[in-house]
């Protein structure tokens, strides 16, 4: 069930009301059943796969844990990784690699070679729960976390419905202890949860869904053949669509978790205010970027083994990041461009790791410099998003080639106006959050003001929600 649809709230409200009447053991069982129901609503065919995958990893974790010296720990770790990534690869990438192999063979003059192609449907959320399972197994192996003794606790950690389909990817050290300990009802936290949900709905239904209309029109050619204006409209609209969509989803997930007494990690920290791509990946989809850093980049050696190894590791990590988003060469190109820019930034400007992401310059000249860097980063990011959005590399390049042409049409004025109408408020919200450091706008304000703002958000949602229900973009992954 989509987070922005009535069925989700018809599900969420009774779950929350019953949940707080139960004790922890019963709460966990109840939530687990509810989460499996939530998953089955999407596609019951793959519930068995998720349960089986969860069960296998639960059992393997007992063998990976160093409670006694176990010479086969590493073998069990490898087995789990191969199994998890094998299942993910089979469902997500089998046909992609088969098609690519066929194309490569054709380029070598070998045509008509029969390759098995299976019409595989992608199980919902597999990218997310697989990464969580891998994080758990690795953390148990490295003794960062003890293996869960209760299957219900572990299964709930994996399948808790707010994060099940599209994240945020929760770390075992962060979420598992919350599952294993009592949750106490905190009215403030519940109130925050409701307001996070309102914030998420505004981001998704008002900003993302309306920007989607413009992005779809530009990319599909409805606004005319690609020219500088359609490229601007399409890339900017898609940038705000994907940000509103995913940050909105994350807010609804975090808000829903808060209603149940859980704290999910923040997934977006005003990413379009980044001054570099390094900073961007510390602010965008934080749960994925930190996962890739901790379970791919650092195990590969990180930046500790010289320039060439660092370059290799950055490119590998970012290409995998791109490929994680989907089985298409466009995602590989997206990741490769980001990897290349990160490499260039690292060698031009150093690691760029700061204690915080506070703007790094000061004074009037500093202000101009900060904003020049932000605009450059944002615009370069938008260009990479063309590959993210396009169905093929050739269509992405064809779209971008429109930058060479300038042709005005009367519908561009309302398009720019509509883009500003829906994107600017989110931009202003980000400026406020950047200045205040809050989780959502006015989080520290009095209850009355926050209630009024929530009521106003419902009114805005009523009248400005987008036309067609666009599924959250990241549900595809």
């Amino acid at each position: 069930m989509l987070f922005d649809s009535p069925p989700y709230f018809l599900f969420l409200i009774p779950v929350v009301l019953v949940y707080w009447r139960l004790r922890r053991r019963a709460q966990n069982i109840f939530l687990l059943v509810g989460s499996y129901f939530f998953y089955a609503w999407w596609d019951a065919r793959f519930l068995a796969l998720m349960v089986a995958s969860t069960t296998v990893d639960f059992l393997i974790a007992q063998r990976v844990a160093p409670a006694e010296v176990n010479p086969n720990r590493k073998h069990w770790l490898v087995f789990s990784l191969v199994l998890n990534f094998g299942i993910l690869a089979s469902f997500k990438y089998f046909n992609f690699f088969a098609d690519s192999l066929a194309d490569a063979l054709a380029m070598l003059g070998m045509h008509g070679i029969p390759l098995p192609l299976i019409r595989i449907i992608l199980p919902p959320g597999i990218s997310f729960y697989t990464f969580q399972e891998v994080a758990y197994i690795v953390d148990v192996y490295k003794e960062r976390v003890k293996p869960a003794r209760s299957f219900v606790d572990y299964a709930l950690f994996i399948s808790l419905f707010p994060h099940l389909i599209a994240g945020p990817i929760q770390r075992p050290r962060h979420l598992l202890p919350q599952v294993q300990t009592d949750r106490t009802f905190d009215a403030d936290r519940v109130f925050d949860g409701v307001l996070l949900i309102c914030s998420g709905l505004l981001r998704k239904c008002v900003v993302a869904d309306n920007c989607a209309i413009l992005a779809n029109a530009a990319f599909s050619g409805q606004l005319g053949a690609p020219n500088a204006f359609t490229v601007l409209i399409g890339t900017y609209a898609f940038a705000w669509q994907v940000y509103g969509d995913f940050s909105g989803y994350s807010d609804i997930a975090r808000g829903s978790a808060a209603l149940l007494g859980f704290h999910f990690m923040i997934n977006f920290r005003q990413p379009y205010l980044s001054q570099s791509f390094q900073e961007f990946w510390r602010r965008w989809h934080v749960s994925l970027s930190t996962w890739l850093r901790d379970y791919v980049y650092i195990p590969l050696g990180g930046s500790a083994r010289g320039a060439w190894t660092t370059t290799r590791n950055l490119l590998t990590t970012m290409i995998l990041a791109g490929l994680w988003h989907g089985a298409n060469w466009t995602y590989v190109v997206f990741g490769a461009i980001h990897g290349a820019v990160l490499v260039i930034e690292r060698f031009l400007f150093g690691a760029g790791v700061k204690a915080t992401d506070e703007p790094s310059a000061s004074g009037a000249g500093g202000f101009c410099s900060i904003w020049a860097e932000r605009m450059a980063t944002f615009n370069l990011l938008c260009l990479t998003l063309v590959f993210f959005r396009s169905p093929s590399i050739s269509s992405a390049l064809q779209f971008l080639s429109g930058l060479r042409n300038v042709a005005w049409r009367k519908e561009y004025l309302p398009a720019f106006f509509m883009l500003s109408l829906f994107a600017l408020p989110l931009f202003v919200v980000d400026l406020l959050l950047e200045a205040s450091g809050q989780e959502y706008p006015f989080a520290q304000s009095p209850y009355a003001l926050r209630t009024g703002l929530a009521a106003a958000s419902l009114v805005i949602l009523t009248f400005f929600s987008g036309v067609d229900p666009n599924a959250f973009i990241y549900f595809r992954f």
Partner: protein
Amino acid sequence: MLAGFCVLFITSIEIAFSHPVKHYSVTYQRVSQQYAEALRARPSKAGEPVSVLMVGNSLLLDGVDVPRLQALTSGRMRIYPIFLEFTTYYDWLYALRRLFRQGARPQFVVVGLGPDSVIEDTVRTEYSPILLFDADDVLQVSSDLRLDRTATMNLLLAHWSTFWDMRTVVRAQILRRIVPNAEDLFEVVRRKRPVTPAPDAEPMATSRLRILRGLVERYGARLILLIPPPTSDSGVRQTTRAASKVGVDTLVPIDPETLSPSLYQPDAIHLNSQGATRFTSALGENLPKRIITRGGVATLPPD
């Protein structure tokens, strides 16, 4: 407190939406009046005009001048039109089921659909659920279109709630007032160019027209498929072939190739008033002939 506000808010919104929509929405009023009128369609007695139910989307809404058509046919036909923009095959399949269930008994049913509309797998999510479907129809539509549970619930809500059904229409109206020249943009975004159906579209069209014919004949009527412009030559041929395989009469009153661009609106899809005059004239000339050739009980009264 917030929960209480939400309940109050939802109830107020529903009440607040119902009244203005039902009284000020041109489309809502038009379709609901046409629907109510169509329910009165009955087989004619000797000397009375033949009852003809005519349904379709904006191509007919803009292309058929119904009063002129009535005049051209000299009162030999009593036309009951129901035209709703952006509708396709499934909208009218289930609308006709409901009409028949509720007692409409026209002698002829003229369904105006272009080749791509016959094979499209959608229904209109505004107006159709609340004006053309019952709840059972919504579930059938969901099954036919293989909608997921969320989409099914959205359609059911649209059937039960005026607010849920009409919210996108209201939103578009608000945006028209806020965004300068919004209509220029909306026209472009809404536009769907007629496409040449793929070769495998013919079996799909055959199957669907068979179902439609079966439905119409079960209630004693005859089906005529009216193909309005603009359509590609191959699209017309494919659809006509599909229709003839299942014994459905096809009417293409005017060759789209003979219609110059000056007869279309700026979107190059809908006929303008001059184009509508030409199309209506052609329809007025050919439709009665088609009804006569069907013979049987339905014979047109003399001029």
